[in-house]
């Protein structure tokens, strides 16, 4: 591992005052998480400026998904703090579009795509979808190439269609930060290429801050402006993609297999 990308867990990536904005997009300080006596995250520190595209990589069980959930306030960290756009996670959530990796929704719930998107806009499940919400849902689906999904029931969608529907849901409220947990999971090769191009384009056109967990080297090389490499609940390397990916250990361990850590940690959210 090269000297400029190697870092100890208690080392800050940036200083709090270094941002040209009043507050950075994401500011994580001293975050640790212990569940049932097991250390999941260990003294995580980083600051991400607005407009950056951060890819979080690492082997299975590294703590990537739990880091996202702790950042979003879906899980309370044991130690440390998180600020999203200078606000607490609960306050900052309204400016965030989130696409979870595993879609844990109730498959028997009578949910159509338009209702899922409208529910995000209003914060409550719609009895009847308003014209305004329907128009916004249709526009968001158009962005992701899924306008034909508007009236479909979620339980009838394929993996790739689900990802598009959830991506549209994440984009509909015009977020400042987009957080995606393995958005390519269950998507075919063409879908991966489409979503990668879409995310890259969105990030550049809208100056979105994007945080994405991925095992795809191609996606990191194509989209990322920053990369975090995690292992055993710690940040082992951080920096520009070229620097971090230069390390053969990162290339060997971060971009093979699929992410199963969610299976261990799902259901442990504290909503």
């Amino acid at each position, binding site marked *: 591992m090269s000297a400029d990308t190697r870092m100890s867990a208690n080392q800050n990536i940036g200083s709090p005052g270094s941002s040209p904005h009043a507050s950075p997009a994401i500011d994580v300080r001293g975050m640790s998480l212990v569940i049932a006596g097991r250390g999941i995250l260990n003294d995580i520190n980083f600051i991400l400026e607005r407009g950056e595209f951060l890819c979080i990589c690492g082997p299975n069980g590294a703590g990537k998904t739990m880091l996202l959930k702790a950042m*979003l306030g*879906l899980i309370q960290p044991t130690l440390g703090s998180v600020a999203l756009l200078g606000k607490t996670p609960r306050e900052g*959530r309204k400016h965030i579009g989130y696409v979870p990796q595993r879609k844990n929704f109730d498959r028997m719930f*009578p*949910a159509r795509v338009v209702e899922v998107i409208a529910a995000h806009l209003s*914060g*409550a*499940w719609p009895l009847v979808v308003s014209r305004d919400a329907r128009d916004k849902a249709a526009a968001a689906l158009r962005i992701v190439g899924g306008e034909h999904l508007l009236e479909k029931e979620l339980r009838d969608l394929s993996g790739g269609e689900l990802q598009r529907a959830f991506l549209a849901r994440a984009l509909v409220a015009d977020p400042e930060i987009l957080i995606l947990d393995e958005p390519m999971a269950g998507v075919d090769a063409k879908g991966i290429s489409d979503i990668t191009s879409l995310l890259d384009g969105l990030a550049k056109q809208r100056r979105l801050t994007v945080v994405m967990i991925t095992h795809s080297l191609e996606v990191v090389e194509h989209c990322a402006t920053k990369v975090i490499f995690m292992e055993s609940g710690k940040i082992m390397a951080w920096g520009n993609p070229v620097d971090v990916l230069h390390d053969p250990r990162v290339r060997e361990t971060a971009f093979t297999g699929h992410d199963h850590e969610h299976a261990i940690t799902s259901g442990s959210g504290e*909503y």
Partner: protein
Amino acid sequence: MIDFFAEILAQDFMVRALTGGALVGVACAMLGVLVFQRGITFVGDGLAHSMFGAAGIVALLNVAVASSSDFIWTALPLNILVGFGMAWVRRTGKLRGDAAIGILFPIMFAAGVLCLALRRNSGAPPINMEALLFGSVLGMTPEDLVITAGGAVVIAVIALTWGRRIAYAAFDPELAAMSGVRVALAEYALFGLCAAVVAFSMRLAGVVLVSSLLAIPAGAASLWRGSYGWQLLFASVFASASVKIGLILAYWIDVPSGAMIVLTMGALFFIATVVRAVTTGFMVVWAPNARR
């Protein structure tokens, strides 16, 4: 036939029963859809038996039980506390949700039996156990109607408004939390509302039968692939029709009304299943996950 309905509508107690029963049925159906989607249908049974225990405790303490409606006001807070307790156990993961209900269910029921026996031994006026167990909607006084109908309307309005947040949390708690729903509050509210609707429904169906008011209309609505709003509407119409048909049949045959209402719901559910099966194919209804 017209004479028969005219005779029914000429009876004040039947008009009160039909009005109060239909409103309570609709409130139960709306909450039932939420409970059904949350996958905790057993909660209705648990809270009904807990209500029996709560009624027994207040009867023993001799706290204002001059009329049957008094049971609602005195036992309701205790039952809501039990509901919150069930929600707390579910959320903290101390026990599986249905295990908590399974433990509280017989304990509260036994406490009710014990308290009513102790009250009888003390020489206090006896409580009509049969009415508590199976309901006594035909004995509804005008005061009972006001309380029952008022409670049912309030619960139905909450289900239609704030209940939409509970529905979102039932769909996916993580996504709901990201959209601003306070999921923990929604969970406690659902259990609290269930405890309340069970209390207001005791007159209609009693401890033993009240859970059917939550489960059967929601189950019938789920047979069709409609939106959540459509399911609420279907379950409400189903419950209202079942209660009215059941009450009229009970009057006609001269049998207990609570049992007749539940049997009517069961019959309509069966008819709905057959209609659904005929229109979409038997396999879709009875073996939705089977490989075809």
